[in-house]
C-alpha cells in the first residue's frame, strides 16, 4: 500500500493535513529543521517545493521562498538529499514534490532519484492535464504518483482526464489565482462532487488555507484534506515557530474539533 493510501486509511473520516515548505529555504540546515517541525506539529503529509527561478503559479510568499533558497546556492541535488534524510527520520509520512516543468525536463533522472529518496508524488504546476500524459507515464514508471490540479473552472471533460491521470490525491483549487490567494473561507463543494463523478483520487484543497476555520470549511465542502503553504512559509520566514500553527490547523481536521 502506498504511503498516501495508508495515511487515508489511518485517518478514516478525519481530514488529512498537508504542510508545504520550500526546500532549501532559507538554507539547507534550517529547511531540514522546518520539515521536522511541521511533522512534530502533526502534519499528516508533506508537500515540498524544489525552487525554480520563474514560478508563475506562485504568489509573493512562495516566490520569495524560492528566491531565498536559490540565493543560498541550493541545487536540485541538495533538495533530493534533504528528502532522503527526511525519509530516514520519518518512514511513514507521505512526501510530495511540487515544482515546475523546466526543473523536471532539465534532469532526466529526477523522477527515479526522487523515488529513491522516498518521494511519493509529484505535481508539476505548469503542466496541465492537457500536457500531462507523458509526464504521468514517466512518474508511474519510476514508482511516483502523479498529482494533478483541478480548479473550480475546470470543465467536466478535463476533470475526467485529471481523475484518470491523478493517483495519490487531486489538488483542488477553489478560487482562481496563484498560491497565497485568499479563498475567503469558501470552498467549492460542486468541484468535489464533480471530481467524485470523475472517479478521481481523494480531493485535497490547496490555496487559501491559513486558519482553522478555512480547514473546517474545506472539509465541510467534501475534501479529504487540506494543504497549507503560504501561511507556514511566511511564518517561518519571520523566524517564528511553525509547530504551533500546524498544530492548530491539524486540530481543525478532527471530527470533534469545535468551531470557535
Amino acid at each position: 500500500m502506498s504511503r498516501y493510501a495508508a495515511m487515508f486509511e489511518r485517518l478514516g473520516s478525519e481530514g488529512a493535513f498537508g504542510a508545504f515548505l520550500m526546500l532549501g529555504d532559507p538554507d539547507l540546515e534550517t529547511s531540514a529543521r522546518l520539515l521536522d517541525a511541521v511533522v512534530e506539529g502533526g502534519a499528516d503529509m508533506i508537500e515540498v517545493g524544489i525552487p525554480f527561478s520563474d514560478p508563475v503559479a506562485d504568489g509573493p510568499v512562495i516566490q520569495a521562498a524560492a528566491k531565498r533558497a536559490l540565493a543560498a546556492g541550493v541545487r536540485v541535488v541538495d533538495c533530493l538529499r534533504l528528502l532522503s534524510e527526511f525519509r530516514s527520520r520519518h518512514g511513514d509520512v507521505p512526501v510530495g514534490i511540487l515544482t515546475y516543468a523546466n526543473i523536471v525536463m532539465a534532469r532526466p533522472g529526477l523522477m527515479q532519484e526522487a523515488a529513491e529518496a522516498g518521494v511519493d508524488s509529484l505535481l508539476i504546476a505548469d503542466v496541465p492535464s492537457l500536457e500531462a500524459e507523458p509526464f504521468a507515464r514517466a512518474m508511474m514508471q519510476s514508482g511516483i504518483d502523479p498529482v494533478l490540479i483541478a480548479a473550480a473552472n475546470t470543465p467536466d471533460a478535463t476533470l475526467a482526464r485529471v481523475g484518470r491521470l491523478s493517483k495519490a490525491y487531486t489538488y483542488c483549487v477553489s478560487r482562481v489565482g496563484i498560491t497565497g490567494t485568499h479563498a475567503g473561507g469558501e470552498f467549492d463543494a460542486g468541484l468535489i462532487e464533480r471530481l467524485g463523478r470523475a472517479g478521481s483520487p481523494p480531493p485535497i484543497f490547496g490555496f487559501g488555507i491559513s486558519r482553522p476555520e478555512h480547514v473546517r470549511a474545506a472539509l465541510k465542502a467534501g475534501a479529504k484534506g487540506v494543504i497549507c503553504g503560504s501561511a507556514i512559509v511566511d511564518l517561518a520566514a519571520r523566524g517564528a515557530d511553525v509547530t504551533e500553527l500546524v498544530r492548530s490547523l491539524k486540530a481543525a481536521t478532527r471530527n470533534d474539533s469545535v468551531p470557535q
Partner: protein
Amino acid sequence: MRLTGRFGRFGGCYVPEILVPALEQLEAAFLEAQEDPEFAAELNGLLANYAGRPTPLTRCRNLPSNIYLKREDLLHGGAHKTNQVLGQALLARRMGKTRLIAETGAGQHGVATAIVGALLGFETVVYMGAEDVERQQLNVFRMQLMGARVVAVESGGRTLKDAINEALRDWSASFETTHYLLGTAAGPHPFPTIVREFQRVIGREARAQVIEQLGRLPDMVVACVGGGSNAIGLFADFIGDEGVRLVGVEAAGRGLDGEQHGATLLRGTAGILHGAETYVLQDADGQIADTWSVSAGLDYPAVGPEHAHLKDSGRAQYVGATDAEALAAFRALAEGEGILCAFESAHALAHALKLARAEPESAILVGLSGRGDKDVAQAQQLLRASA
C-alpha cells in the same frame, strides 16, 4: 484545443490548469474570427487607415544595393508590434473582455498595447520590470499619456521575463474580464500561432513588393530574433519557397563565448518556459539564466517555439550579431540611407551587410522591424564612450 499547438516537438501549452480554459476560449475566438469576413475587414481597415499599411520596401542606395529593407519602422507606433496588437485587441473585444494586460521589456510592446487600449477603449495595465522602468522613462510616460497604467515588477531579476511572470499571475486571477495581450510569437498555445498569423502581413507584402521591384523572389530573408514575432511574420510566407534562405539573427551581446548574450537558439537547450517547450538559456538545474543585449527587445532567455522547430528542421538558419556589430550597422544605416533603425533591427542589418558583401549577386530582404528614436540616447552614450 482544436489545434495541436506544436511545431515539431516544440510549443504546447504548459500553464497552470486554471489558465487552460482562457487559452481554449482564445483559440476558439481566433479560429472563428479567421472565418469571419467582418473581422478581416475591420482589422484590414485599421491596418491601412490607422496604422499605415502597406509599409514600403526600400532598396538601399549607399549601402550595398542588393539589400531591400521592409520598413516596419514606418508603421504607427514605430515598430511591427502594432500589427498584432490590433488583431489581438479585436479578439479581446470579440470575447467580451474589457481589460488588457501586457508585458514589456524596453516598452515597445507596452506602447503598442497602450495605443490599442486608447483606440478601442480598454482599461490597460502594462507590467514592466522595475529595472526597465528606470531605464526607459520616456516609454513609461508614453504609455501613461495614452491612459495605460504601468506596474513596475520587483520580483526576480526585475526585467522582461519577470514582467511576463507577473502578467501570467495577474491573468490567473483575472481572465474572466481580461485578455493577456502577449507581445511576441512565444508563450503557450495559441499565442505563437495567433501572433504569427497577425504578423504574416509583413512577409506577404514584402514578397509581393520584392517580386514587383526585382521580378523574382529574394535569395535571402533576414530578420532579428528575440521572442521572434517580426522574424516569423517576415518568414511565414517564404517558408514554402524552398530556394529562399531564411536567416534569423540573435543577440550575441558581448560575445557568444561568455554569458552576456541573448542567443537562445545558438546557445540554449530545450526546456519549458512561459508556457512553451522551446530553446531556453538555463543552467544545469533548469534555472533560467540572465541574458544581455544592447537591445532590450532581444534580451529574452527563451524564443518562439516555431523558430526552435525551423532551426532543428534546418529550414531556417540562426546566427548572432554582437552589440558592437549592431551599433556599427545602426550608424551605417543612418549615414548611408538616412534611416535611424531600432537596435533590434540593426542586428539583422549587421548580418545582412556581411552577406551582401560576400554574395553581391544575391538579393537580400531585411526586416527593419522598428525605428530607432527609442535608442538614440543610448546610442549617443555608447558612441561617446567608444570615441
